[in-house]
């Protein structure tokens, strides 16, 4: 369900903390539009580090694979990336449907090797919010609907104090792709 306990601003603040701890960046330099690779100097391993910190902070499990890998796995080789290493039209359509403009204007065609550079502080914030929005209606332990947060970060049951559990990031993408395929028959 769409949750309102944890705000976008709070997620962005926590993300900035994770980025500063990982990359030793100047916090003031981190804007929603900052590319982690191009603007903040991240390397591939740093994403694992930042994701790990976010997982510890919010009690979520970030996706291990990017949406393009899931598309290839679910809809076959070549479905997301063509033989020249360019994103397919269908992959771009799905990226836009899923993430809106968060990855910028993709209409001119894009090389798969440049995809990681599209990841911004804003797109990562959105990724965390998407996971938080998988908050179940009721507590898995006591069955009550009494979610609350004391620190604006971790959601727990107001009735039994159990921490909320969220859908795993890879499952969230796969579920969404399955639903989109059923609805729009993209492939």
């Amino acid at each position: 369900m769409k949750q309102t306990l944890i705000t976008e601003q709070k997620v962005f603040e926590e993300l900035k903390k994770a980025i500063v701890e990982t990359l030793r960046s100047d916090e003031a330099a981190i804007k929603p539009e900052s590319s982690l690779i191009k603007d903040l100097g991240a390397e591939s391993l740093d994403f694992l580090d930042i994701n790990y910190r976010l997982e510890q902070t919010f009690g979520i499990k970030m996706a291990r694979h990017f949406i393009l890998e899931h598309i290839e796995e679910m809809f076959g080789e070549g479905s997301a990336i063509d033989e020249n290493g360019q994103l397919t039209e269908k992959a771009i359509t799905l990226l836009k449907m899923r993430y809106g403009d968060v990855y910028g204007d993709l209409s001119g065609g894009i090389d798969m090797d440049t995809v990681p550079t599209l990841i911004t502080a804003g797109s990562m914030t959105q990724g965390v919010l998407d996971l938080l929005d998988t908050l179940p209606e009721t507590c898995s332990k006591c069955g009550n609907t009494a979610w609350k947060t004391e620190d604006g970060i971790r959601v727990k049951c107001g009735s039994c104090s159990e921490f909320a559990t969220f859908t795993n990031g890879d499952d969230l993408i796969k579920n969404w792709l399955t639903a989109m395929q059923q609805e729009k028959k993209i492939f």
Partner: protein
Amino acid sequence: MVITGVGMVTPLGRNCDETFANAAQGRSGIDYITSFETTGLPCRIGGQVKDAWLTDPESDVRHRFGRFSSRGLRLMQTATLEAASQAGLETIIDRERVGVSLGSHGENVSVSEMSELLRFYDGNGHWDMRGLLSSCQYSPFQFFLRKPDTASSILSMLFDCRGSSLSIVSACAAGPQAIGEAYRIIQDRKADVMIAGGCEATLNFMGFIGFVLIKALAEKYTTPQTASRPFDRKRNGFVMSEGAGAVVLEDLDHARSRGANILGELLGYGSSADAYRITDTHPKAEGAFLAMAGALEDASLTADDIDYVNAHGTSTVQNDLVESLAIRRIFGERARSVPVSSNKSMMGHTIAAAGAIECILTLMGMHRSLILPTINYEHRDPKCDLDYVPNEARHMPYRRALSNSFGFGGQNACLCIGAFEE
């Protein structure tokens, strides 16, 4: 500087000839891992060496070293026996002029060792030392297995080498750096002969899990044998393997004076660092370029003198892209007409052993006028546009080659190898 003995044990064979023969047929040494339980892991394959191929320490008079010997060292002992026997190493009288230079890493702590230790730990920083010290289960010899220097030390004992004994720890660059540094020691007249090479045996849970977590291993494959696909557009990670490679390097005059059979020459060695990132490669291939250029300069050759490149070719997206770029930078307009192939397509990545094994296979190919193929090459990658000797070995005489090794962390080494010319 000449090579008078070579030896190896790999997923493709118990020795040099068997490995080369299988590689020449384009066979893969990769299969599902049986050395530990891989259920649930996103990568369950690797290149294992058959236990039966290892020298049996019990049959050896020196078997008292067995309790200090990691699997890596046992592989290295097997490879070195082959190389030493070919070189007639035991006939050399002055043992103070014979040294060892080995690329290896200490053996990873085992899960059973950790479990045993944790029996004496309360989880809050306190140890039951009385219990631990009086336990019969925790062997004091574990300590030696963990240390990366033990293998070189024991190799020196096993083969009675009383000259320099070096332990090189630099991941994928360790094997060729060990050979390169041994070459320098002989050039500096500090030794006449060096046993040099590398060994790796990391197909265990603790060795494997780290590479799984950083997503470096091939996870998308239809069969184990087709997972390692260097330079192919569908490559998606490397395949971890174990093995060892040993060469006997020798001063030319020394080799001649004792009538040793000369197999080839080590012409040059280049070594560099990307000084960039811990896993990402330098986007302009700066470190890789420096290592290759360094090896050429050291050999007093230019790129025009090189007939073949034995690539690092790990089958990761980044390495193969950046290595192709480095080769283009070194060879310029000639780049597309120089054959480049990756032995890792067949045997996976033997990490510290890889460069040593590949240097030997390159030399063996020279003798046979045969360039080993890059197997599993099916989909052309527009960014990797060189001649990768796809899928079938190629008959072609060649006399000089480069062998590349570029490690995680940006440690790079390149060896320039040549046929022996009187």
